[in-house]
Protein backbone atom coordinates (compact mmCIF):
# COMPACT_ATOMS: atom_id res chain seq x y z
CA UNK A 1 0.00 0.00 0.00
CA UNK A 2 1.28 3.44 -0.86
CA UNK A 3 0.87 6.27 1.60
CA UNK A 4 -1.19 8.81 -0.28
CA UNK A 5 -4.68 10.09 0.42
CA UNK A 6 -6.76 9.77 -2.74
CA UNK A 7 -6.63 9.13 -6.46
CA UNK A 8 -8.75 10.79 -9.12
CA UNK A 9 -8.77 10.85 -12.90
CA UNK A 10 -10.25 13.63 -14.96
CA UNK A 11 -12.21 13.33 -18.21
CA UNK A 12 -10.17 16.06 -19.87
CA UNK A 13 -7.27 18.38 -19.16
CA UNK A 14 -9.45 21.31 -18.08
CA UNK A 15 -11.09 19.16 -15.44
CA UNK A 16 -7.64 17.97 -14.32
CA UNK A 17 -6.44 21.57 -14.01
CA UNK A 18 -9.63 22.33 -12.05
CA UNK A 19 -9.01 19.44 -9.64
CA UNK A 20 -5.47 20.67 -9.02
CA UNK A 21 -6.42 24.31 -8.60
CA UNK A 22 -9.21 23.47 -6.15
CA UNK A 23 -6.88 21.46 -3.89
CA UNK A 24 -3.48 22.66 -2.68
CA UNK A 25 -2.74 19.09 -1.50
CA UNK A 26 -3.20 17.62 -5.00
CA UNK A 27 -0.25 16.31 -6.99
CA UNK A 28 0.07 14.97 -10.54
CA UNK A 29 0.93 11.36 -11.18
CA UNK A 30 1.64 9.99 -14.67
CA UNK A 31 3.39 6.63 -15.05
CA UNK A 32 4.38 6.73 -11.39
CA UNK A 33 7.91 5.44 -12.00
CA UNK A 34 9.39 8.36 -10.09
CA UNK A 35 6.48 9.26 -7.80
CA UNK A 36 5.83 5.77 -6.45
CA UNK A 37 9.54 5.11 -5.91
CA UNK A 38 9.77 8.36 -3.94
CA UNK A 39 6.67 7.38 -1.96
CA UNK A 40 8.28 4.08 -1.03
CA UNK A 41 11.07 6.07 0.60
CA UNK A 42 8.49 8.36 2.19
CA UNK A 43 9.40 11.49 0.27
CA UNK A 44 7.64 14.43 1.93
CA UNK A 45 6.68 15.83 -1.45
CA UNK A 46 4.27 12.95 -2.07
CA UNK A 47 3.25 11.36 1.26
CA UNK A 48 -0.41 11.99 2.09
CA UNK A 49 -1.21 13.77 -1.17
CA UNK A 50 -4.29 13.63 -3.35
CA UNK A 51 -3.17 12.25 -6.69
CA UNK A 52 -4.58 13.30 -10.02
CA UNK A 53 -3.78 10.77 -12.75
CA UNK A 54 -3.09 12.22 -16.19
CA UNK A 55 -2.20 9.29 -18.45
CA UNK A 56 -5.79 8.54 -19.47
CA UNK A 57 -6.71 12.09 -20.43
CA UNK A 58 -7.73 11.84 -24.10
CA UNK A 59 -4.94 12.99 -26.41
CA UNK A 60 -2.27 13.04 -23.67
CA UNK A 61 -0.37 10.13 -25.22
CA UNK A 62 -0.72 11.09 -28.89
CA UNK A 63 2.23 11.83 -31.15
CA UNK A 64 1.52 13.75 -34.34
CA UNK A 65 3.07 15.79 -37.12
CA UNK A 66 1.41 19.19 -37.77
CA UNK A 67 1.03 20.75 -41.22
CA UNK A 68 3.84 23.22 -40.45
CA UNK A 69 6.18 20.31 -39.66
CA UNK A 70 6.02 20.67 -35.88
CA UNK A 71 6.28 17.35 -34.06
CA UNK A 72 3.84 17.25 -31.15
CA UNK A 73 4.34 14.67 -28.41
CA UNK A 74 1.67 14.23 -25.74
CA UNK A 75 3.30 14.57 -22.31
CA UNK A 76 1.96 11.19 -21.19
CA UNK A 77 3.43 9.31 -24.16
CA UNK A 78 5.50 6.44 -22.82
CA UNK A 79 9.13 5.86 -23.75
CA UNK A 80 8.03 2.69 -25.57
CA UNK A 81 5.49 4.67 -27.57
CA UNK A 82 8.16 7.18 -28.62
CA UNK A 83 10.55 4.37 -29.50
CA UNK A 84 7.98 2.71 -31.75
CA UNK A 85 6.37 5.78 -33.30
CA UNK A 86 6.56 6.27 -37.07
CA UNK A 87 6.75 10.11 -36.97
CA UNK A 88 9.61 9.99 -34.46
CA UNK A 89 11.40 7.26 -36.43
CA UNK A 90 11.24 9.36 -39.58
CA UNK A 91 12.05 12.81 -38.23
CA UNK A 92 13.66 12.47 -34.82
CA UNK A 93 15.28 9.02 -34.54
CA UNK A 94 17.72 10.31 -31.90
CA UNK A 95 14.79 10.87 -29.53
CA UNK A 96 13.82 7.23 -30.06
CA UNK A 97 17.43 6.35 -29.16
CA UNK A 98 17.25 8.40 -25.97
CA UNK A 99 13.85 6.93 -25.01
CA UNK A 100 15.18 3.45 -25.76
CA UNK A 101 18.08 3.97 -23.37
CA UNK A 102 15.78 4.37 -20.35
CA UNK A 103 15.52 1.59 -17.74
CA UNK A 104 14.27 -1.74 -19.04
CA UNK A 105 11.18 -2.66 -21.09
CA UNK A 106 8.74 -2.48 -18.19
CA UNK A 107 9.91 1.01 -17.20
CA UNK A 108 9.76 2.14 -20.85
CA UNK A 109 6.17 0.88 -21.03
CA UNK A 110 5.11 2.86 -17.97
CA UNK A 111 7.34 5.92 -17.71
CA UNK A 112 6.32 9.00 -19.66
CA UNK A 113 8.31 11.72 -21.37
CA UNK A 114 6.37 14.42 -19.52
CA UNK A 115 7.23 12.76 -16.20
CA UNK A 116 10.86 12.56 -17.29
CA UNK A 117 10.93 16.35 -17.77
CA UNK A 118 8.69 17.38 -14.87
CA UNK A 119 10.60 15.18 -12.43
CA UNK A 120 13.46 17.61 -12.93
CA UNK A 121 16.40 15.17 -12.83
CA UNK A 122 19.57 16.20 -14.64
CA UNK A 123 20.01 12.56 -15.67
CA UNK A 124 16.65 12.34 -17.50
CA UNK A 125 17.56 10.77 -20.82
CA UNK A 126 14.94 12.50 -22.94
CA UNK A 127 15.57 15.91 -21.34
CA UNK A 128 19.02 16.50 -22.82
CA UNK A 129 17.96 15.12 -26.21
CA UNK A 130 14.90 17.39 -26.34
CA UNK A 131 17.02 20.33 -25.20
CA UNK A 132 19.30 19.73 -28.19
CA UNK A 133 16.19 19.84 -30.41
CA UNK A 134 15.19 23.31 -29.12
CA UNK A 135 11.95 21.74 -27.87
CA UNK A 136 9.15 23.82 -26.42
CA UNK A 137 6.56 22.86 -23.84
CA UNK A 138 2.83 23.48 -23.90
CA UNK A 139 1.61 23.96 -20.36
CA UNK A 140 -2.07 23.88 -19.51
CA UNK A 141 -3.30 26.01 -16.62
CA UNK A 142 -6.32 27.85 -15.32
CA UNK A 143 -5.62 30.69 -17.78
CA UNK A 144 -5.38 28.32 -20.75
CA UNK A 145 -2.34 27.00 -22.58
CA UNK A 146 1.07 28.68 -22.70
CA UNK A 147 4.11 27.63 -24.70
CA UNK A 148 7.58 28.02 -23.19
CA UNK A 149 11.03 26.86 -24.24
CA UNK A 150 12.40 23.72 -22.56
CA UNK A 151 15.60 25.72 -22.01
CA UNK A 152 15.00 27.38 -18.64
CA UNK A 153 12.32 24.92 -17.53
CA UNK A 154 14.73 23.16 -15.18
CA UNK A 155 15.42 25.34 -12.13
CA UNK A 156 17.61 23.05 -10.05
CA UNK A 157 17.79 19.42 -9.01
CA UNK A 158 14.19 18.16 -8.95
CA UNK A 159 12.80 21.65 -9.52
CA UNK A 160 11.03 22.83 -12.67
CA UNK A 161 9.08 25.91 -13.70
CA UNK A 162 5.59 24.57 -13.11
CA UNK A 163 3.17 26.23 -10.76
CA UNK A 164 0.53 24.40 -8.79
CA UNK A 165 -2.38 23.79 -11.13
CA UNK A 166 -0.26 23.62 -14.26
CA UNK A 167 0.02 20.44 -16.30
CA UNK A 168 2.65 19.74 -18.91
CA UNK A 169 0.45 18.90 -21.87
CA UNK A 170 2.69 18.60 -24.91
CA UNK A 171 6.29 18.69 -26.00
CA UNK A 172 6.84 20.31 -29.37
CA UNK A 173 9.78 20.23 -31.73
CA UNK A 174 9.41 22.77 -34.54
CA UNK A 175 10.66 22.00 -38.05
CA UNK A 176 13.64 24.32 -37.50
CA UNK A 177 14.59 22.10 -34.58
CA UNK A 178 15.15 18.99 -36.65
CA UNK A 179 14.94 19.63 -40.41
CA UNK A 180 18.30 19.07 -42.06
CA UNK A 181 19.83 17.93 -38.77
CA UNK A 182 21.12 14.56 -37.77
CA UNK A 183 20.93 13.66 -34.11
CA UNK A 184 22.70 11.33 -31.74
CA UNK A 185 22.37 10.47 -28.07
CA UNK A 186 25.03 8.73 -26.03
CA UNK A 187 24.21 7.54 -22.55
CA UNK A 188 27.33 6.64 -20.67
CA UNK A 189 26.40 4.35 -17.82
CA UNK A 190 28.08 1.54 -15.95
CA UNK A 191 25.50 -1.01 -17.10
CA UNK A 192 23.90 -1.23 -20.52
CA UNK A 193 20.37 -1.30 -19.10
CA UNK A 194 18.55 -0.38 -15.89
CA UNK A 195 21.08 2.27 -15.03
CA UNK A 196 21.01 6.02 -14.62
CA UNK A 197 23.41 7.95 -16.87
CA UNK A 198 26.85 8.79 -15.49
CA UNK A 199 26.76 11.33 -18.28
CA UNK A 200 24.32 11.84 -21.16
CA UNK A 201 25.30 13.68 -24.32
CA UNK A 202 22.86 14.71 -27.05
CA UNK A 203 23.79 16.40 -30.30
CA UNK A 204 21.93 17.75 -33.32
CA UNK A 205 24.22 18.56 -36.23
CA UNK A 206 23.60 20.18 -39.62
CA UNK A 207 26.35 19.79 -42.21
CA UNK A 208 27.11 21.82 -45.31
CA UNK A 209 29.43 19.55 -47.23
CA UNK A 210 32.25 18.88 -44.79
CA UNK A 211 31.60 22.10 -42.86
CA UNK A 212 29.54 22.21 -39.70
CA UNK A 213 26.67 24.58 -40.46
CA UNK A 214 25.16 24.22 -37.00
CA UNK A 215 25.72 22.09 -33.93
CA UNK A 216 23.65 21.86 -30.78
CA UNK A 217 25.06 19.99 -27.80
CA UNK A 218 23.19 19.19 -24.60
CA UNK A 219 24.34 17.28 -21.55
CA UNK A 220 22.69 15.45 -18.68
CA UNK A 221 24.58 15.11 -15.36
CA UNK A 222 27.16 17.72 -16.42
CA UNK A 223 25.57 20.15 -13.98
CA UNK A 224 22.57 20.37 -11.62
CA UNK A 225 20.17 20.54 -14.59
CA UNK A 226 20.32 19.40 -18.22
CA UNK A 227 22.30 22.10 -20.07
CA UNK A 228 23.47 23.30 -23.46
CA UNK A 229 27.13 23.88 -24.32
CA UNK A 230 26.86 27.43 -25.69
CA UNK A 231 30.51 28.27 -26.28
CA UNK A 232 31.27 24.90 -27.87
CA UNK A 233 28.28 25.39 -30.17
CA UNK A 234 29.44 28.89 -31.14
CA UNK A 235 32.96 27.63 -31.85
CA UNK A 236 31.71 24.71 -33.97
CA UNK A 237 29.76 26.85 -36.45
CA UNK A 238 31.55 27.03 -39.78
CA UNK A 239 34.40 24.67 -38.81
CA UNK A 240 35.44 21.88 -41.10
CA UNK A 241 34.63 18.60 -39.40
CA UNK A 242 37.76 16.74 -38.37
CA UNK A 243 39.21 15.08 -35.28
CA UNK A 244 41.01 18.26 -34.12
CA UNK A 245 37.80 20.29 -34.29
CA UNK A 246 35.89 17.62 -32.37
CA UNK A 247 38.62 17.66 -29.72
CA UNK A 248 38.43 21.43 -29.47
CA UNK A 249 34.63 21.19 -29.17
CA UNK A 250 35.17 18.77 -26.29
CA UNK A 251 37.53 21.21 -24.55
CA UNK A 252 35.01 24.06 -24.99
CA UNK A 253 32.30 21.83 -23.48
CA UNK A 254 34.32 21.74 -20.25
CA UNK A 255 33.98 25.53 -20.02
CA UNK A 256 30.22 25.25 -20.51
CA UNK A 257 29.58 22.59 -17.91
CA UNK A 258 29.88 22.09 -14.18
CA UNK A 259 30.53 18.41 -13.47
CA UNK A 260 30.65 17.22 -9.89
CA UNK A 261 31.71 14.25 -7.84
CA UNK A 262 28.96 11.82 -7.00
CA UNK A 263 28.88 8.23 -5.81
CA UNK A 264 28.38 7.23 -9.45
CA UNK A 265 31.55 8.83 -10.75
CA UNK A 266 34.35 11.22 -9.87
CA UNK A 267 34.39 14.75 -11.26
CA UNK A 268 37.59 14.09 -13.24
CA UNK A 269 35.99 11.09 -14.91
CA UNK A 270 32.88 13.09 -15.81
CA UNK A 271 35.09 15.83 -17.28
CA UNK A 272 36.81 13.24 -19.42
CA UNK A 273 33.38 12.09 -20.64
CA UNK A 274 32.30 15.69 -21.29
CA UNK A 275 35.30 16.19 -23.54
CA UNK A 276 35.01 12.96 -25.54
CA UNK A 277 31.30 12.15 -25.75
CA UNK A 278 30.30 15.12 -27.99
CA UNK A 279 32.72 13.90 -30.67
CA UNK A 280 31.39 10.37 -30.37
CA UNK A 281 27.80 11.62 -30.48
CA UNK A 282 28.56 13.64 -33.62
CA UNK A 283 30.08 10.56 -35.27
CA UNK A 284 27.09 8.53 -34.20
CA UNK A 285 24.70 11.17 -35.58
CA UNK A 286 26.51 11.20 -38.88
CA UNK A 287 26.16 7.46 -39.18
CA UNK A 288 29.57 6.37 -37.95
CA UNK A 289 30.29 4.09 -35.07
CA UNK A 290 30.14 6.48 -32.17
CA UNK A 291 28.61 4.20 -29.58
CA UNK A 292 30.05 4.44 -26.11
Amino acid at each position, binding site marked *: *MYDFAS*YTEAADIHEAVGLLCANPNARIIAGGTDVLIKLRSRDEAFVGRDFVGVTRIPGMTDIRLCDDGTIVIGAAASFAKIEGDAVIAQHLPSLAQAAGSV*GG*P*QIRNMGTVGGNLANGATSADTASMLLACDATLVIAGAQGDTEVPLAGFHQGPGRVKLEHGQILKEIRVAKAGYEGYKGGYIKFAVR*RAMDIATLGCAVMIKMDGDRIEDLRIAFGVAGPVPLRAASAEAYAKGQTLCDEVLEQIGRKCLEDTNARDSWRAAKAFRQQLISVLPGRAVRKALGGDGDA
Partner: protein
Amino acid sequence: MRKLINIEVNGKAREVAVDVRASLLEVLRGELELTGSKKGCGVGECGACTVLMDGVAVNSCISLAVWADGRKVTTIEGVSPEPGKLSDVQQSFVDSGAVQCGFCTPGLVMAATALLGEQPSPSREEIRRGLSGNLCRCTGYSTIIDAVENVAKTRGQA
Protein backbone atom coordinates in the same frame (compact mmCIF):
# COMPACT_ATOMS: atom_id res chain seq x y z
CA MET B 1 -10.79 5.40 -0.39
CA ARG B 2 -12.09 2.41 -2.38
CA LYS B 3 -12.91 2.25 -6.04
CA LEU B 4 -14.79 -0.39 -7.99
CA ILE B 5 -12.73 -1.51 -10.96
CA ASN B 6 -13.46 -3.89 -13.80
CA ILE B 7 -10.55 -5.96 -14.99
CA GLU B 8 -10.27 -8.95 -17.24
CA VAL B 9 -7.79 -11.16 -15.40
CA ASN B 10 -6.47 -14.11 -17.37
CA GLY B 11 -9.54 -14.04 -19.63
CA LYS B 12 -12.11 -13.75 -16.80
CA ALA B 13 -14.02 -10.54 -16.15
CA ARG B 14 -13.68 -9.50 -12.52
CA GLU B 15 -15.18 -6.66 -10.54
CA VAL B 16 -13.05 -5.71 -7.54
CA ALA B 17 -13.40 -2.98 -4.94
CA VAL B 18 -9.79 -1.91 -4.52
CA ASP B 19 -8.13 0.49 -2.14
CA VAL B 20 -6.89 3.24 -4.46
CA ARG B 21 -3.54 3.13 -2.65
CA ALA B 22 -2.97 -0.53 -3.48
CA SER B 23 -0.52 -1.67 -6.09
CA LEU B 24 -1.74 -4.01 -8.79
CA LEU B 25 0.60 -6.63 -7.32
CA GLU B 26 -1.09 -6.39 -3.93
CA VAL B 27 -4.55 -6.81 -5.47
CA LEU B 28 -3.43 -9.74 -7.63
CA ARG B 29 -1.78 -11.55 -4.73
CA GLY B 30 -4.39 -10.49 -2.16
CA GLU B 31 -8.02 -10.09 -3.29
CA LEU B 32 -7.52 -12.17 -6.44
CA GLU B 33 -5.40 -14.88 -4.80
CA LEU B 34 -3.02 -15.07 -7.75
CA THR B 35 0.27 -15.53 -5.94
CA GLY B 36 2.35 -16.45 -8.99
CA SER B 37 3.53 -12.87 -9.44
CA LYS B 38 6.29 -12.21 -6.93
CA LYS B 39 7.43 -9.19 -4.97
CA GLY B 40 11.17 -8.91 -5.15
CA CYS B 41 12.12 -5.28 -4.70
CA GLY B 42 8.85 -3.34 -4.78
CA VAL B 43 10.55 -0.47 -6.63
CA GLY B 44 10.65 -1.47 -10.29
CA GLU B 45 14.19 -2.83 -10.34
CA CYS B 46 13.86 -6.62 -10.43
CA GLY B 47 10.89 -7.53 -12.66
CA ALA B 48 9.68 -10.40 -10.42
CA CYS B 49 6.22 -8.80 -10.39
CA THR B 50 5.96 -8.46 -14.20
CA VAL B 51 2.47 -8.92 -15.65
CA LEU B 52 0.99 -7.98 -19.00
CA MET B 53 -1.44 -5.10 -19.16
CA ASP B 54 -3.22 -5.14 -22.50
CA GLY B 55 -0.35 -7.34 -23.69
CA VAL B 56 2.38 -4.96 -22.54
CA ALA B 57 4.85 -5.89 -19.77
CA VAL B 58 4.64 -3.72 -16.66
CA ASN B 59 5.97 -3.93 -13.12
CA SER B 60 2.80 -4.56 -11.08
CA CYS B 61 4.54 -3.41 -7.88
CA ILE B 62 4.73 0.17 -9.16
CA SER B 63 1.40 0.13 -10.99
CA LEU B 64 -1.63 1.29 -9.06
CA ALA B 65 -4.42 -1.30 -9.14
CA VAL B 66 -6.84 1.41 -10.33
CA TRP B 67 -4.78 1.73 -13.52
CA ALA B 68 -5.94 -1.77 -14.49
CA ASP B 69 -9.56 -0.58 -14.65
CA GLY B 70 -11.00 -1.51 -18.05
CA ARG B 71 -7.87 -3.42 -19.01
CA LYS B 72 -6.84 -6.99 -19.66
CA VAL B 73 -4.28 -8.31 -17.19
CA THR B 74 -2.37 -11.51 -17.82
CA THR B 75 -0.38 -13.09 -15.02
CA ILE B 76 1.77 -16.21 -14.96
CA GLU B 77 -1.39 -18.15 -14.02
CA GLY B 78 -2.90 -17.12 -17.36
CA VAL B 79 -0.19 -18.09 -19.83
CA SER B 80 -0.83 -21.83 -19.97
CA PRO B 81 -3.26 -23.11 -22.59
CA GLU B 82 -5.13 -25.35 -20.10
CA PRO B 83 -4.84 -26.31 -16.44
CA GLY B 84 -1.91 -28.63 -15.82
CA LYS B 85 -0.21 -27.74 -19.11
CA LEU B 86 2.68 -25.34 -19.63
CA SER B 87 2.96 -22.66 -22.30
CA ASP B 88 5.79 -23.16 -24.79
CA VAL B 89 7.78 -20.43 -23.00
CA GLN B 90 7.34 -22.15 -19.64
CA GLN B 91 8.24 -25.56 -21.10
CA SER B 92 11.33 -24.12 -22.73
CA PHE B 93 12.47 -22.63 -19.38
CA VAL B 94 12.18 -26.13 -17.89
CA ASP B 95 13.91 -27.85 -20.82
CA SER B 96 16.76 -25.33 -20.98
CA GLY B 97 17.51 -25.51 -17.26
CA ALA B 98 16.57 -21.85 -16.86
CA VAL B 99 14.95 -22.32 -13.45
CA GLN B 100 16.90 -22.68 -10.23
CA CYS B 101 15.24 -21.23 -7.14
CA GLY B 102 12.41 -20.06 -9.39
CA PHE B 103 11.64 -16.75 -7.71
CA CYS B 104 12.43 -14.73 -10.84
CA THR B 105 10.80 -17.22 -13.21
CA PRO B 106 7.19 -15.94 -13.33
CA GLY B 107 8.41 -12.43 -14.13
CA LEU B 108 10.90 -13.65 -16.69
CA VAL B 109 8.30 -15.85 -18.39
CA MET B 110 5.98 -12.82 -18.64
CA ALA B 111 8.75 -10.57 -19.98
CA ALA B 112 9.77 -13.27 -22.47
CA THR B 113 6.15 -13.81 -23.52
CA ALA B 114 5.80 -10.07 -24.22
CA LEU B 115 9.12 -9.92 -26.05
CA LEU B 116 8.26 -12.84 -28.35
CA GLY B 117 4.89 -11.25 -29.06
CA GLU B 118 6.63 -8.10 -30.29
CA GLN B 119 9.69 -9.73 -31.88
CA PRO B 120 9.04 -13.30 -33.03
CA SER B 121 12.70 -14.04 -33.81
CA PRO B 122 14.93 -11.89 -31.61
CA SER B 123 18.72 -12.11 -31.68
CA ARG B 124 20.50 -13.02 -28.43
CA GLU B 125 21.31 -9.33 -28.01
CA GLU B 126 17.64 -8.44 -28.48
CA ILE B 127 16.67 -11.11 -25.95
CA ARG B 128 19.13 -9.61 -23.45
CA ARG B 129 17.63 -6.18 -24.00
CA GLY B 130 14.06 -7.52 -23.81
CA LEU B 131 14.79 -9.20 -20.48
CA SER B 132 16.93 -6.41 -19.05
CA GLY B 133 14.19 -5.36 -16.62
CA ASN B 134 14.37 -8.73 -14.85
CA LEU B 135 16.98 -9.86 -12.36
CA CYS B 136 17.93 -13.45 -11.61
CA ARG B 137 20.31 -14.17 -8.75
CA CYS B 138 20.81 -17.87 -9.55
CA THR B 139 21.22 -18.84 -13.18
CA GLY B 140 23.72 -16.38 -14.64
CA TYR B 141 21.15 -15.71 -17.40
CA SER B 142 22.64 -17.73 -20.26
CA THR B 143 20.19 -20.63 -19.84
CA ILE B 144 17.35 -18.11 -19.72
CA ILE B 145 18.49 -16.61 -23.00
CA ASP B 146 18.77 -20.13 -24.43
CA ALA B 147 15.21 -20.83 -23.31
CA VAL B 148 13.82 -17.80 -25.14
CA GLU B 149 15.93 -18.47 -28.21
CA ASN B 150 14.65 -22.04 -28.32
CA VAL B 151 11.02 -20.93 -28.22
CA ALA B 152 11.65 -18.58 -31.13
CA LYS B 153 13.32 -21.38 -33.12
CA THR B 154 10.56 -23.89 -32.39
CA ARG B 155 7.82 -21.40 -33.23
CA GLY B 156 9.65 -20.51 -36.44
CA GLN B 157 9.60 -24.16 -37.51
CA ALA B 158 5.92 -24.65 -36.73
